[in-house]
């Protein structure tokens, strides 16, 4: 599939939104934790819509509710009753999303008693595939994930970056059209990270899955995404959606192009403003505490 194909596919999906329903749609989604006076509003009034095959990156200050949003999309946490989540146009009641979305949590959450290979096949086993078949399927992915030779190792024998790749492989083997990745490359060094980004784009262009990707890294958000969504400080809501029209396939040189720089400058201002708010908020709270 050529890069044009992907571009046009994405565009077409967007312009024909009335015909093809968005793959994922959130309407007025809220999440409040606890009750007054200790109520935390983690996510407020989130509206978003992602077309089939689109790669969307989500960026926002720490603690703004990104992981909470993912937990709701994965079906692990019910959204508050004032909003709804739609998958391919179908409203999803509480619990209906479980098993429909490939979700990679922020922590690798590998099972220490399982080998790397058996960690990778976890979802396949849940789906009822025989161990032998699941292993054979996973084994073929090891070179691609840079884990060849580590099939029989245990998680505690791996570096942080390797563990993250095992978790990523586990997510990919759970073959669902929508993939949620919560800071998948957060633990990787810059070199491996750049390599994994290109590798992920390659996989995505071949498999045409819809990806929603959380990151703290603006470069990463722009480099990967068709769209970058910026979240506000808590209570998190979508502040801004930036369409990234950089041509695909993208290689490392994109990052130094003037277009990229221009987008980055705009997003940086927006993200930093929110980060400042996060710190100002916590300072206010601390002040209030010391005063009372």
């Amino acid at each position, binding site marked *: 599939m050529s890069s044009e194909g992907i571009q046009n596919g994405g565009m077409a999906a967007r312009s024909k939104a009335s015909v093809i329903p968005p793959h994922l749609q959130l309407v007025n989604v809220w999440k409040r934790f606890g009750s007054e006076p200790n109520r935390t509003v983690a996510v407020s009034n989130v509206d978003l819509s992602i077309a089939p095959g689109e790669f969307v990156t989500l960026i926002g200050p720490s603690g703004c509710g990104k992981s909470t949003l993912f937990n709701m999309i994965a079906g*692990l946490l019910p959204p508050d009753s004032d909003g709804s989540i739609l998958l391919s146009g179908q409203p999803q009641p509480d619990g209906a999303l479980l098993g429909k979305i490939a979700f990679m*949590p922020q922590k690798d959450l590998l099972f*220490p008693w399982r080998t790397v290979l058996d960690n990778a096949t*976890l979802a396949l086993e849940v789906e009822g595939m025989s161990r032998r078949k699941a292993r054979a399927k996973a084994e073929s992915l090891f070179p691609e994930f840079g884990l060849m030779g580590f099939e029989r190792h245990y998680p505690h024998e791996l570096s942080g970056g390797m563990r993250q790749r095992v978790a990523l492989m586990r997510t990919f083997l759970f073959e669902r059209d929508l993939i949620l990745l919560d800071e998948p490359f957060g633990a990787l060094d810059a070199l491996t990270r750049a390599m994994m980004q290109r590798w992920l784009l390659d996989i995505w262009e071949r498999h045409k899955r819809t990806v929603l990707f959380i990151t703290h890294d603006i470069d990463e958000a722009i480099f990967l995404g068709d769209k970058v969504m910026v979240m506000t400080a808590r209570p998190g809501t979508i502040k801004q959606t930036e369409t990234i029209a950089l041509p695909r396939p993208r290689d490392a040189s994109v990052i130094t192009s003037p277009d990229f720089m221009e987008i980055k400058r705009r997003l940086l201002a927006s993200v930093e403003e929110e980060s400042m708010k996060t710190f100002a908020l916590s300072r206010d709270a601390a002040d209030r505490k010391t005063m009372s």
Partner: protein
Amino acid sequence: MTMRGRILTSPPVTVLLVALAWLAVVPLFNIEPRYLPPLGDVYAEAVKLWPDLLAGFWRTFLETFIGFIAGALIGIGFGTAFAYVRLLERAFFPIFVALQSVPVIAFGAIVVIWFGNTILAKVVIALYLAFFPVAVNTLRGLSGVNPGRAALLSSFGASNWQSFLMLALPSAAPVIMTGLKLGISLSLAGAIVGEWFGDTVGLGVLLLQALYFEQVTRVWVLIIACGLLGALLYGALSLIERRYVWWQFD
């Protein structure tokens, strides 16, 4: 640990060192046999007692083993039920705690009345003592399952049963192992005490007889035999743990 440190702390070497100390200390401090008989005498007594000793060892082993296995299974069963059905835990857990504070001697009396001087009576006492630590630790292990991992499995669409088998049980296994290791030592004590209520074969029986006739050397033989049995049972569990349940609870 260094190579030398490992050798010094390996069980056979420890036993050898204790034996050497025993050999040296008795003549050195002129200890009366009433307090500590010479090791040679103890050995001779063991040889004399051999057939009875062997039969007693086997019998006490059997009581302990059967009681422990039954207690462990029931303990894991109850621990699991408590972990998943809060109501059951609230209703029954306090009862078990209260039962547990009844001294085994008192409980043993009624067991013997119920089951007579059979092997079953000892098995039941061993079971009773193993049950509680296993149940408590099973409950603790299963309630401490990492919620993130549980969420991950649900996101794959796992059923409760799958979550139990693939996550809860293996992650609780190290804690359950701790309960089993506590339980097996208690089972042995239970079996020996059970024999004191009356029987003809068993290490406990021999121990009681030796006590009556003030056969100090024989008491030492039996102390060593009981210690050996305990060490064998505990060692077997530790071996299983090291081989199959080597990961940490987190």
